[in-house]
């Protein structure tokens, strides 16, 4: 579920396991992402000028979901470094591959409580 709490021109969005804030500044919108240390990083600034609030919010959410997609990355076998048992080559996952994700450490998709809406996982509100 996506939860939105409204405070005038600012909205908090909990998407997957991350917290985003959408802030209207003048006629444009900024999107920030909460970091593990509590600070906020700017995802985008000066966006969606002069759009109606509802359109801007919908586009902000779509942009967040594009930049931070839900899902796991599939990593192929590490054929260059097989473990050998006699003549037998045992090929494990390529943990040195840049796309390898340690599920509980690296993944932005590691939601604590999730359920399925129209084929997409969203996290519950914390």
């Amino acid at each position, binding site marked *: 579920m996506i939860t939105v709490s409204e405070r005038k021109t600012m909205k908090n969005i909990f998407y997957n396991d991350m917290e985003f804030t959408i802030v209207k500044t003048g006629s*444009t919108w*900024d999107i920030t992402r909460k970091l593990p240390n509590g600070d906020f*990083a*700017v*995802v*985008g*600034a*000066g*966006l969606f000028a002069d759009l109606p609030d509802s359109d801007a919010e919908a*586009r902000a959410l*779509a*942009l967040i979901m*594009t*930049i931070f*997609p839900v899902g796991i990355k599939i990593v192929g076998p590490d054929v*260059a470094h097989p473990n050998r048992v006699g003549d037998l080559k045992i090929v494990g996952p390529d943990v040195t591959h*840049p*796309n390898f994700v340690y599920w509980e450490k690296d993944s932005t998709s590691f939601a604590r409580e999730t359920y399925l809406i129209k084929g997409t996982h969203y996290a519950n509100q914390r």
Partner: protein
Amino acid sequence: MQIKGSVALITGGGNGIGEAVAKFFAKHGAKVAIVDMEQKNIDRVVKEIKDIGGEVIGIQANVTSEAETAKFIKATLEAFGKLNIAVSCAGIIRDGMMLSLDKETGKVSRKMGLDKWQPVIDVNLTGTFLTLRDAAEAMINGGWEGLLVPISSVNKVGQVGQINYSSAKVADALMPKIIIGEFLMRGIRNIRCVGIAPGYTATTMLTGMNQDVLKALLKDVHIGRLVEPDEVAALIGHCVENGAINATTLEITGGLCYPNGIAK
């Protein structure tokens, strides 16, 4: 094409030349999408551009991945509604000799492995191809005026110890001619392609190196100093606004010469 009001996508925009290009475009009124592998670098550059009043998004992505390339193109269009400029700055080096010889026997003792070859080709050549291909697709389908900018290097001439890097960069330098030839044949007139081949540039990769080695490098540079990233960015900005520059790769080296005085 005017920079002001255009939308620019810069891969490798989290540091070095890419960061300078992103800030240059933002200062001159373009909307900027920054792509990089390092989220911390993205966060820093996006914040700095926001602080100067720029319109910007940051996207973490691997340029060697088709899926991630599609992701950052889509994000750019979702944020800004169009795409006009794509600068492929993402690049890496893994220097080394193709073959190393044993000093005593004269026989080959070591070979450059695919671990040094393939990542450099993947990022510097395949990554550039994917970025320019998908950016061109968006520009053609959107009907927007566009400029594609592969970043080559003066070492496209063939640098010993960089068979991987030089091979990729000479291919990058050739892309503008092939792409524009294809566009001409297809009747695509709204997109230009200009490569940029910097010489020794004052990025952290060079400024952080051994200073004696750096001094030795600068002996071969006519202006006696490194090229500044801002100077490379300004050249790209000029290419945006000068519609006659097309289907070529421009060098910006400060007059880099071979030790015998012949300019590279």
